[in-house]
């Protein structure tokens, strides 16, 4: 599992990583602990989704791996080299949440600028810009100034720049933000292609359905700590049943409260069942009481369901802790 630390040489390896944000102007009590004792290992060719609520520490973790931040304690290696070192940088491609560019530069000039920083010669640059800009749907935009690009186009250019060096480790922070459906498909295809070439990819996103189409391996971060998502979506947790109620939704909620209700919103109730026999008893229980079912379907638990369940548990734990 990617969340467990592995001793073999990994594309990304974090050991007991802790990051505390301090500043000269804050007291010790005001210091923010963004990550606490995080250990993880990602292998070459693996695609890993990084999920967690806002402010959980996802971007901090990505910035630490990219060498933009230094850990308060713990070690990070990229391809066996210390994160932030020149050797690690040669293996790494990084796309920040909101890529920024020189407004007066054209798309092609900006791409060439970053290519030159990666020590790519003029011929290589021309070939690469043709290939990558085409692949990301930026070909017709190459002479457009970066200042006039839409948010989605900026994301595409940011992605192209992250891939300039044909990295062995690619870190994408919310890459699908503002991308149109075509862009999302292109991103997905690109990620699959890179993964098949052996690139390890770490993607953070709040678009969980999109993320689920790219990978089935997830790392969850809640309150700066790793949550084992693998355990949460394992089959022993049961199957989900989505029931759409036709009438008397509030009553239906009450009637179903004896089962494990995952979520109830709108006219939909999601339950967790342990066996198929439960379905028959749920249906008969509801219909006997005059509640009609519009639709019913069995589903594996989606990553969104897992996300919401973990969030509920975390909130509950927090409340219990504060009550004490």
């Amino acid at each position: 599992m990617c969340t467990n630390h592995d001793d073999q040489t990994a594309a990304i390896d974090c050991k007991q990583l802790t990051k505390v944000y301090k500043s000269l102007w804050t007291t010790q009590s005001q210091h923010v602990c963004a990550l606490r004792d995080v250990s993880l290992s990602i292998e070459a060719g693996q695609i890993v989704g990084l999920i967690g609520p806002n402010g959980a520490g996802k971007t901090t973790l990505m910035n630490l791996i990219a060498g933009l931040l230094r850990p308060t304690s713990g070690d990070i290696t990229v391809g066996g080299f210390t994160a932030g070192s020149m050797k690690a940088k040669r293996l790494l491609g990084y796309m920040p949440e909101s890529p920024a560019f020189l407004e007066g530069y054209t798309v092609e000039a900006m791409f060439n600028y970053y290519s030159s920083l990666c020590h790519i010669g003029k011929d290589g640059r021309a070939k690469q810009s043709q290939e990558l800009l085409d692949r990301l749907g930026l070909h017709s935009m190459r002479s457009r100034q970066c200042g006039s690009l839409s948010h989605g186009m900026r994301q595409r250019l940011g992605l192209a720049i992250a891939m300039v060096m044909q990295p062995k480790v690619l870190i994408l922070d919310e890459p699908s933000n503002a991308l149109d459906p075509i862009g999302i498909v292109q991103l997905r295809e690109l990620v699959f292609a890179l993964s098949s070439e052996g690139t390890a990819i770490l993607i953070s996103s709040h678009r969980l359905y999109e993320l689920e189409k790219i990978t089935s391996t997830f790392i969850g971060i809640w309150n700066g700590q790793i949550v084992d998502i693998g355990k949460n979506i394992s089959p022993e947790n049961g199957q989900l049943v989505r029931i759409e109620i036709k009438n008397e939704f509030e009553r239906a909620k009450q009637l179903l409260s004896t089962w494990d209700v995952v979520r109830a919103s709108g006219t939909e109730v999601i339950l967790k069942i342990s066996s198929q026999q439960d379905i028959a008893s749920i249906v008969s229980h509801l219909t006997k009481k005059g509640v009609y079912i519009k639709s019913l379907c069995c589903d594996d638990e989606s990553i969104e369901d897992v996300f919401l369940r973990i969030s509920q548990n975390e909130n509950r734990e927090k409340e219990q802790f504060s009550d004490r």
Partner: protein
Amino acid sequence: MIGEIIKETCLRKRFIPRLHVTYVVTYLAIYLVSYGMHLLTPDSSYSTQWGLWLFAWSGCLFPVLLTAGIFGNDIDSGRMLQLATMPVSLGWLYTLRVLGMFIQCLVHLAVCFSLIFVMQSLTGYATEKNLGSWFLASLLISLTWLTLSTTLSTFLMREYNVVVIMIGSIVIFMLLMMINTAAALADWSALSETATKIAKYGIPPVIMLFNLGMQKCSITGGIVAAIHAIGIALFYAIVGIVILNHMEFVHKRE
């Protein structure tokens, strides 16, 4: 890579190419206006010290304007996040950016001094013998201002490096005046001397290089002034590189 970074220092902001053109056009216009006034009132004792003029505007102000937000803009906009993950050391990036701006200063000074020299040769008005020493002094002072302002830009966001230098220069000048006045009144000559030495050696050595431009110093004095200017520029650059290498980059969220 070197060419791209040097090019970037000129094209990163739309106002920089315009600044180059504006300076040359302004010098030409001022020269022609001044020459016109001289023709209208030939008896006046009015004269222009073009070397000093170029030293102040092109040697001191121009490099500071060139460095506006050179790193501050990158850090503030989040551009630094991608720059810092590229396989190029931040010290090398700093050096190449300063080199790029210094080349611009060199070209700018060469163009402006040539313009004034040609105009003086053509009109025979306000001719000045020591334009060469002013050129050298301007080049050296521009290097120190460039490195000082670039270093300030590593920890001051946006274009605040320019604001701090402008305000700082005025404040230091006024402080020196006050110290000198107080020293004269209360006989604190030691204080006055210390303050003058700090101003002379610690900050860009304007006084030393002014004397070099005016040819008020000996050849040895001139060499010392040049070495001092290069040394202090080197000191500013090292401070800037150390700061950059110890920085953590996080994009501020709205």
